[in-house]
């Protein structure tokens, strides 16, 4: 009887809100606008958002929406999201134009259809994700899409058709994609035929991202590894060779604390090859890689990474970067990653003292004895390195985003202080600037 009443309530509620109100603003920061029926308005707490609306967040802004099924969707700063459809009956479709979403889909919602079907689809410019369970993050810069799963299960695939697709068609697309388990991530790069094989995310990044449900922005280093030190791996050995299993700890747990050690989760994970691999179009990043969430760039743990058998992930080399309190990836000091996915490395010319900011290709996403750490592939000063399969000329003289300069100096006879921001789109100095090198002459 209770079930019938609930179902009746759900049907009535969903009918009442069909084409109209599907989500309520529960929490927000900064400026959030909604575009509905051709009209833009500023959102505030307790406002309703209708199906077909576009929600836009400004820089440093955030909004938490509670959907009619009690699912939560947190929309991060500088994001744009369209609710294509959302009802209690069929799978909802969300279009994330740019930015990021952290979502916790309720189990009620998940139970309304068969277990192996997606209950919600989130589309981006180049990917689609089918949600079958519950806590995940998805981010896109408009060209690349990255997704991280904290709990449950999602399926993820490339999307080539940008039109409004039926849930049935979307289901068919995600079914042939990759299945992501908790703690794993996958990235769909614009120029790749398929997403990366799911790999385990760096444990610290996962932990910090999972904690940061409200998408707080805190670029301060997390408690752990605030200062990068030396690698635990002595030259010559692999991260596997020096790694220590937790067997001793487990036996101490059993003996001293009389506690049975926990077994790994049976829900499935990419426990496979932790070092990662590249086999034709199949790219599996190393377990323990970082993800630059805003751009989808994958940063491998580096050659000095140690395998943690407890989680089957590599603990990163000290020069591979670290994680901030909000779960963002923080690259080494001489490296900057733009939201467009460009990796800029500052290299000092020992002869002249000039600092050259170079764009380099991302390092191969695997761990090996010869693996390179991000930024270490800047090489000698000279022609910029091109990404595999991409000629240096392919970078083209496109405008570059602002660059934080590593030292004081002059650029085109203009003084720039240490840490100063160089606005390369400034027309006053746009001539002669390419997106690959900027020469900073020290003062």
């Amino acid at each position: 009887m209770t079930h019938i009443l609930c179902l009746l309530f759900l049907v009535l509620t969903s009918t009442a809100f069909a084409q109209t109100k599907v989500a309520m603003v529960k929490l927000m920061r900064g400026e959030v606008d909604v575009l509905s029926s051709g009209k833009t308005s500023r959102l505030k707490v307790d406002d309703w958002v209708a199906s077909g609306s576009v929600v836009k967040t400004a820089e440093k802004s955030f909004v938490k929406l509670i959907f009619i099924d009690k699912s939560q969707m947190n929309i991060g700063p500088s994001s744009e999201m369209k609710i294509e459809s959302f009802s209690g009956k069929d799978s909802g479709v969300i279009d994330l134009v740019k930015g990021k979403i952290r979502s916790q889909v309720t189990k009620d919602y998940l139970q309304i259809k068969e277990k192996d079907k997606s209950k919600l689809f989130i589309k981006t410019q180049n990917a689609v994700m089918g949600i079958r369970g519950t806590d995940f993050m998805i981010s896109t810069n408009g060209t690349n899409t990255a997704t991280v799963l904290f709990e449950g299960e999602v399926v993820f695939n490339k999307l080539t058709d940008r039109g409004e697709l039926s849930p049935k068609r979307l289901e068919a697309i995600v079914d042939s994609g990759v299945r992501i388990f908790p703690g794993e991530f996958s990235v769909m790069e614009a120029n790749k035929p398929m997403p990366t094989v799911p790999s385990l995310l760096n444990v610290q990044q996962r932990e910090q991202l999972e904690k940061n449900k409200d998408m707080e922005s805190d670029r301060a280093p997390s408690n752990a590894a605030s200062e990068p030190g030396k690698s635990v791996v002595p030259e010559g050995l692999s991260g596997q060779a020096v790694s220590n299993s937790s067997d001793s700890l487990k036996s101490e747990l059993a003996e001293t604390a009389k506690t049975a050690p926990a077994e790994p989760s049976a829900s499935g994970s990419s426990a496979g090859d932790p070092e990662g691999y590249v086999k034709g179009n199949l790219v599996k990043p190393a377990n323990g890689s970082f993800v630059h969430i805003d751009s989808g760039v994958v940063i491998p743990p580096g050659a000095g990474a140690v395998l943690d058998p407890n989680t089957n992930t590599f603990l990163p080399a000290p020069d591979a970067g670290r994680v901030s309190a909000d779960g963002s990836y923080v690259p080494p000091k001489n490296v900057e990653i733009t939201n467009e996915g460009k990796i800029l490395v500052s290299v000092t010319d020992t002869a002249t003292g000039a600092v050259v900011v170079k764009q380099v290709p991302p390092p191969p996403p695997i761990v090996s004895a010869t693996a390179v750490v991000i930024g270490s592939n800047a090489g000698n000063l000279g022609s910029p390195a091109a990404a595999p399969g991409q000629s240096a000329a392919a970078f083209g003289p496109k405008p570059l985003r602002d660059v934080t300069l590593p030292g004081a100096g002059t650029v085109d006879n203009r003084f720039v202080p240490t840490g100063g921001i160089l606005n390369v789109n400034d027309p006053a100095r746009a001539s002669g600037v390419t997106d690959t090198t900027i020469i900073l002459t020290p003062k």
Partner: protein
Amino acid sequence: MKTIAWMLCLFFCSLATAQETADISAAQNNTVFASAVELFAQGKYQTVIDELKEIEQKFSQSKGVSRQLLGFVAYWKGICYNRSQDYPGAIESFDRALSHDYSPLDLNYEYGQALFASEKLAEARIQFRESLKKKFKRGVSLYYIAFISKELGQNNKAFTFFRAIEKLEEGEAFEVRQAAEMQIGDIYLEQVEKRIDAFRTVETYVIPQYERALALNPDSPLGPVIREKIVKLQRKYDLVLFQLRNGRPALIPPYFLRIAQEFGQDTNVTFSPAETTISKSKQASAYSRTDVVGRYTFYVDNYFSIAPEFRANLTHYFNRVPEIYRNDNYLLAPAIRTAYEHTFRKKPASFLVDYDFSEARRDVNAREEFDFNSRTHAFMVGERFNFFSSGESVARLRYRILDSFLSDSDSTSTSFVFEQVMSLGSTTLLFYGSYDMMRVKNEAFDTNALTFRTDLILPRFEDWFTPSLALSLTSTDPINNRSARGRELLLNPSVRLSRTFAQRWRSNLKYEYQRNKSDDKSNFDFTKSIYAVEFEYLF
């Protein structure tokens, strides 16, 4: 009274123990650690640390929590700090665990790693020694000890520990053996690069050591690293261009040019080459000799090489009496050397075919002018092969035609030659043996001669010079003139001290003694010494 006091003491002690047991029991309750255990399994180390801190806090408020339990919590926290790469936190935690006399099997290893990452190398080494004593990850612990010793500049210690890895059982050493061999190569390189003749010792010691490391597992992830080290050295020191099809390295650069200038004192100037008689002067003279040798090796499809060679030298005596200056001479000697690379017993071998031409001009008439002295054509076929493990062997058959300014001295000679290289660690031995049958137009001068020569090249002495010693014995049988000359014996010991300046300059101090015993005292019996200093430049 005493008994009562003891009983009281016993009673209070037992009470305390009971309290402790109760607390431990509480701690042993799964609920105390359950959450931390689950979080640890998920790799949420930062949260586990927070949990353990709370547990520590609770324990500190309880009475009589055992040191073992406190030690365990500190140890676990240390492990989590290590996994979070927060090494100062790990160090503090492991230190606390040890202060509670709690030291499970892997504590010292984990502690050592935290100290190593914090660059507290000497302390880290102590912990890895403890780990080694506990036989925990022996191979890796030993490697850490050796590596830290190397980092601390204690190369001798490092070498000893790296070598000790070789003695471990395969199961303990397989992860580190190749890296240890590579590190030994690095130690060699560090020592060798300080030396003036680094280019030579790199080839003799360092590269073979890296090759030994590589041979352990060429397909390992470390393989490309070791290969790169070898190639870098080969490029830096111009050692190898590429490998021929049988694995023999080709020369890089493919050319060889040596210019040498020698100044010496000859106690009894003689000129024997290309003559059937020895023109001993019984006079001493200082002399100068300039020698140039050049060769360029062309490789065809990495199995065949052809190398044109040219040699020229000029000898001038400073004692200007006719008996002496009639020995002033110069020699021009082009040659073509070819090698066909193949394998013998699955090892590199070369089939050699050479042609040598030489023309010597000498002041034969003592007019202070160079006249024709002799001309030779020599043909040689031979085989260079690896039969003995100690080094390469070369067998040659040579036929030479000599046209002399004295028509009676025109001759042909056939020789069998065998050479063997023996590498004895840092010492090299060269053996040379030949049997020459010379047939002269004037048959009275026909000879059969047997020569043995040994060269001993010793290791560099005190970073100052490289000594080499040689002894040659030649027994000559004047087959048609035994009655006058008897069986002759030439004893020829020599010593040379070489010192390299910069990479390409070398100087040699040489001393040579010759004693030829013959029944023909007036023409063939003689003694002489040569003292010389030579400067060489290798391009």
